[in-house]
């Protein structure tokens, strides 16, 4: 047997650990709560109301969750579209995380839909409503989930003897899916921002702007890059894997994130100035505070990654990536929930059950990720020298 990418190997190891058990329990609790929602309705589990018809399930599970799952997209952009083969070892782990992030995001939308049994209407030509940004997002996300699994499928195919003969054919056509895998997220990650444009005055001026699609897309790409850095560093600790060979690429990714964030902040403030809303930065109470926290988080990778030594250290990379991820997540949470005001008298804060479902979905993602990387050829395994091993253990 001469598999195509021999360097990809399963990590092996135990499946039942403290982490996986905790994750499984959280996922089960979420499954129970979702069953309750199915029988008794959304109100039995969530604090949703007609002033806040979208809550944390949409804001986190879908909007933030899919942005966290942009690693596969970001890596495909640099590795295949910019043709930088050096990033290749980082692609497959990123793809896998994207598969889970998107699939579970897609599943959680179904639970949020009041009339979920009609969901297939999205695909019926006579019902399709292309003026609706949600229609575009729904179609793109559905297709992208498929595309992601196809992109990841070589890892599965090589493990299933019956499928192995088709591997070559699959790899020959894969480039079409890689291209789709770059187009679809570009469309829906920007459109997740456009979703809010139609809400007009109901979204606070610190967030409401025709640039929403640009701001959402650029921050999603950076969150994609950051999750790759985050997972590489965390994975190296969790799976006791050396990432020595990946450090130069991670440092370059940090550079890209930094550049994007400078541009993002220039656009964000430029837009506030053009719209004459700069004053709102300071006189909007809680919203001002949330906005400023976002800005500090976005500025962190800019400052941190300007230093070579930080880009070359696992700690520097990790802090910068986490700040970027938190900034992007907060930006989305703010835009969808904190900035939304449909009139006096409405309040929303997620219920405990609602939050438990969100935690359960995250736990399910982590659990599946661990199982997959232990059983399937996802990570690159580099031939480690004795010194490498010793160095890795010292850390």
């Amino acid at each position, binding site marked *: 047997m001469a598999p195509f990418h021999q360097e990809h190997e399963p990590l092996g190891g135990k499946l039942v650990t403290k982490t996986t058990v905790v994750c499984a329990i959280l996922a089960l609790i979420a499954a129970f709560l979702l069953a309750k929602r199915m029988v008794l309705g959304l109100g039995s589990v969530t604090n949703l109301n007609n002033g806040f018809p979208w809550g944390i399930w949409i804001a986190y599970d879908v909007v933030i969750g899919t942005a966290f799952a942009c690693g596969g997209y970001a890596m495909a952009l640099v590795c295949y579209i910019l043709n930088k083969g050096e990033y290749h070892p980082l692609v497959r782990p990123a793809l896998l995380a994207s598969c889970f992030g998107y699939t579970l995001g897609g599943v959680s939308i179904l639970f949020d839909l009041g009339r979920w049994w009609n969901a297939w*209407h999205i695909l019926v030509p006579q019902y399709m409503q292309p003026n609706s940004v949600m229609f575009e997002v729904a179609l793109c996300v559905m297709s992208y989930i498929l595309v992601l699994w196809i992109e990841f499928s070589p890892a599965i195919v090589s493990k299933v003897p019956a499928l192995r003969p088709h591997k070559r054919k699959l790899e020959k056509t894969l480039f079409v899916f890689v291209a789709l895998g770059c187009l679809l997220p570009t469309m829906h990650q920007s459109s997740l921002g456009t979703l809010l444009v139609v809400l007009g005055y109901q979204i606070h001026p610190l967030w409401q702007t025709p640039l929403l699609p640009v701001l959402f897309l650029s921050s999603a790409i950076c969150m994609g890059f950051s999750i790759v850095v985050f997972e590489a560093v965390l994975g190296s600790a969790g799976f006791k894997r050396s990432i020595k060979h990946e450090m130069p690429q991670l440092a370059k990714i940090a550079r890209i994130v930094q*550049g994007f964030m400078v541009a993002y902040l220039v656009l964000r403030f430029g837009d506030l100035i053009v719209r004459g809303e700069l004053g709102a930065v300071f006189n909007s109470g809680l919203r001002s505070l949330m906005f400023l926290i976002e800005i500090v988080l976005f500025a962190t990778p800019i400052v941190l990654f300007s230093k070579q030594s930080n880009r070359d250290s696992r700690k520097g990379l990790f802090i910068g990536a986490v700040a970027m991820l938190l900034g992007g997540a907060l930006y989305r949470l703010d835009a969808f929930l904190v900035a939304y005001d449909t009139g006096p008298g409405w309040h929303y804060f997620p219920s405990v059950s609602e939050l438990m479902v969100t935690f359960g979905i995250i736990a399910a993602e982590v659990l599946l990720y661990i199982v997959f990387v232990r059983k399937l050829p996802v990570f690159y395994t580099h031939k480690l020298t004795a010194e490498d091993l010793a160095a890795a253990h010292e850390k």
Partner: protein
Amino acid sequence: MAVNRRDFLKGAAGGGAALATAAVATAPAQARENKPMPPNAVGLLYDSTLCIGCKACVAGCKEANDLPPDFNTAEQLWDTPIDIGPKTFNVIKLYASGTAEHKDQEENGFAFVKKSCMHCVDPSCVSVCPVSAMTKDPQTGIVGYDPDICIGCRYCVLSCPFGVPQAEYDTPTPKIKKCEMCRHRQAEGKIPACAEVCPTGATVFGPIAAIDAEIARRRAMVPGETATFERRTLGSGDVHEKAAPKYLEHVYGEKEVGGTQFRFMSSVEFEKLGMPALRDKSYPSDSEGIQHTLYSGMIAPAVVFAGLVWAAKRASHVEDEHPEE
């Protein structure tokens, strides 16, 4: 801090160029105009100065639409809706200030206002619905809802600038609830129940052209002089007399978010009555403008896709030349 300035600027310039291109692409986004009034549009005219707050319309609406009582007091003795909701398509609200002695006066006065769907000319709820469950009749302009198509995403609830569509949360089979201008009654040749039962003609039904003419007639009235007002339908001939009030020049719904088919006349400022101050441009004109700019005919995505396929193919060739086998 040892900032490597050249590298820093290079990275920033790259990201900046990408973002600037994207920003320019969305810039001509304001292209779409507000939608025009449908040819045979019908609507409602509500005159706050005629309303006596009897709430016959609230009861009439419930009966016509088979809606349950909406209890909000401990005793649960009678229907006490506080606002529109899943059980209530239409409410009369009270504005009161100071001693609340004088009707239709802003200081120390009071006034009533009706709340139900505005039947926007360019409705957000229709623009956002992914599956055409919310539709605007191309002839009458009535904004209707079909639960058999609806997926329950609640984007309509989120987007309506007036907070009208109401979702249900206490059932596994929730629907969206809102005023559909009694289209089921109109199909039988009847008029909306709220206009039918109104004893003072505060709510009247009619074609938009007639409503426009009636608004012009009332605007021209001399305050204090005896004037005539029709009940139920404009042109019904069922007329009563009353001293003309001093109307505001502003008629709510003529311009707001591209116009609505439900119009309001009042002596008390609309913001005091709890109606949002809205711009003339509809919100769907913004969002659809962006979408149409980016996706019209799917040309831009097709071009981008072609480029991506080319690049991805090139990358996969490189791999073929250096097989890792």
